């Protein structure tokens, strides 16, 4: 028995609700739904919005099979967010939407209004998770996945979390991740978009970092035909820190955009950002990054680096780094950006040692990504991703 699923554009405000959910959540979904319908399309000049048409996205009223790639570390709460709404209602209510606001964009609103999939992860005060947690999300029924992850680390908690989107299907994935770090918490966050080649990925990710808390954020983006990721590290706490790296590979037919924001709000916050991109064939990657040093901040240290390697003449990468400073009290703010082909001097050096040109290019590119891939915490996953990237170069 096959029932034709309705498309999202045809839904009513009643259709989006989930029976049995608390009133506050129903109201939040409704408000988000209103934003979906009333807001203007986002002004994203480098993202092809026709790849994310609501008229093409099917609505699946129930959650798909949730998956995990690893066991749950002792003492950490991991459950589908839809269950946490009931089992940990107060926590979910306190944090849901606090990092990724539904009015961040039409698609953030779409996610808030219609999510069924996704995870709730909670690490209690001062608890150090002993092993990495790997959350793996694929497509269920219907052509659209709407998933939302809510990750809460209480004061002094520590966790290594891998969030991976992988598999074929869809093609539409509209996902959001909210990461809440309490004071002194440490999150090693590995965010992987390794979808099959036909997926259209739309993601919003925001990490809110408390006093003296640290996030080590490693992003790997190799899959999908279209990717638009709005990501932000909100350094709200005094002495909060982020070390953010990314590896992006855009090959034939891929259009991958990342818009990472570093927002310095607290005193003595520190950020290091190093994004690496390889484009090949007809691939097109965009880095649309921003460092925003807010008015109330002080003694900020921030550095943004972004490097792109072109492996073919048709491949394209755009880099639009920005820096906005609304305070007179900045300790250090720096920026470096490079873009170009594989360095001739490096190639010559390696060839002069007998290494054929194609192997030399390969080693240089893998070396380029090494510092990012090296941070993937699970050996098998790191080896798999490294091999996948190597095979594509």
């Amino acid at each position: 028995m096959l029932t034709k699923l309705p498309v999202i554009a045809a839904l009513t405000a009643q259709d989006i609700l989930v029976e049995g959910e608390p009133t506050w959540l129903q109201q939040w979904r409704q408000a988000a739904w209103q934003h979906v319908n009333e807001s203007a399309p986002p002004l994203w000049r480098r993202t092809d919005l026709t790849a994310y048409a609501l008229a093409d996205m099917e609505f699946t009223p129930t959650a798909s099979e949730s998956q995990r790639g690893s066991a749950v570390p002792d003492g950490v709460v991991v459950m589908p967010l839809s269950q946490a709404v009931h089992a940990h209602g107060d926590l979910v209510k306190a944090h849901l939407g606090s990092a990724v606001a539904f009015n961040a964009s039409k698609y953030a609103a779409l996610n808030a209004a219609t999510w069924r999939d996704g995870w709730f992860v909670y690490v209690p005060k001062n608890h150090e998770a002993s092993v990495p947690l790997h959350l793996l999300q694929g497509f269920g029924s219907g052509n659209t996945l709407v998933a939302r992850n809510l990750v809460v680390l209480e004061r002094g908690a520590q966790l290594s979390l891998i969030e991976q989107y992988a598999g074929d299907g869809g093609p539409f994935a509209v996902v959001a991740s909210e990461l809440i770090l309490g004071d002194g918490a440490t999150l090693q966050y590995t965010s992987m978009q390794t979808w099959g080649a036909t997926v259209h990925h739309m993601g919003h990710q925001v990490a809110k970092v408390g006093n003296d808390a640290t996030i080590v954020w490693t992003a790997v983006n190799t899959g999908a035909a279209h990717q638009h990721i709005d990501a932000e590290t909100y350094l709200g706490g005094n002495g909060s820190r982020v070390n953010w790296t990314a590896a992006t590979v855009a090959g034939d037919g891929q259009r991958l955009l990342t818009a990472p924001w570093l927002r310095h709000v607290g005193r003595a916050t520190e950020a290091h950002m190093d994004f690496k991109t390889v484009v090949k064939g007809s691939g097109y990657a965009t880095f649309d990054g921003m460092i925003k040093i807010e008015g109330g901040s002080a003694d900020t240290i921030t550095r943004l680096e972004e490097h792109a390697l072109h492996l073919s003449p048709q491949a394209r990468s755009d880099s639009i780094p920005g820096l906005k400073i609304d305070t007179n009290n900045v300790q250090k703010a720096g920026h470096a950006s490079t873009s170009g082909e594989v360095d001739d001097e490096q190639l010559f050096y390696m060839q002069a040692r007998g290494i054929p040109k194609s192997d030399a290019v390969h080693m240089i590119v893998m070396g380029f990504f090494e510092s990012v891939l090296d941070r993937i915490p699970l050996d098998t996953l790191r080896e798999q991703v490294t091999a996948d990237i190597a095979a594509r170069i």
Partner: protein
Amino acid sequence: MELVIKDLHANIGDKEILKGVNLTVTPGTIHAIMGPNGSGKSTLSNTIMGHPSYTVTGGEVWYKGQNVLELPVDERAKLGLFLAFQYPVSIPGVTVANFLRAAVNAHRAVAGKDPRETAIPMAQYRKEIREKMAALGVDDGFARRYLNDGFSGGEKKRVEILQMSMLKPSMAIMDETDSGLDIDALKVVSQGVNTLLTQNPEMGVLVITHYQRLLNYIKPNRVSVMMEGRIVREGGPELALELEERGYDFIREEVFGNAN
């Protein structure tokens, strides 16, 4: 086999740097090329190896029955030519150990054979690199560092010699290996080269240097002087000493006259 350079001309862009170099390096000899800055010494070494910034506009370089100028760079290396770089480049993300293993395996590769069959066994490779590093006074941890990334001048040159001793070339070109070395590092590096020469007495070495200093440790059999893109004088080791004492000007005057 001899390395024979015949009337070699090379440009950077539109500027002619090599203006007809003739030189023969015989196996088992250390042949020094000395010359003032800007005389074309480094251009010569880079042109022999095939650096893409230099355009050959005339001449030939024969080695083992082939005009190496017609070969891709990696084939020149596999023929037995080795260039110890004046300024070794860093390759972030590629460890010394992995890089050298790739180089060793590239040398061992045989067309039509599975590279896994010809690759050096891991245990043998580890043993060899450890021995060679110890001989050069290179710390064990070096193998795991990214190639030349953050290395001091002395470390870079030691790693050049380490590569040379692992790849065992039949003709080594050393481009200003002494530049940036203190006297201790210079001794270690020279000793490395001399050890290699003892092990491979048929190896030819072309030592390119500005100063006589290096030649106190790596003793040349032949000395050629290069000026304005040509070899202008050849002699025995005594020529190097004479240059040390008198500078290059007396040769300049003899060759180009007193016009300026």
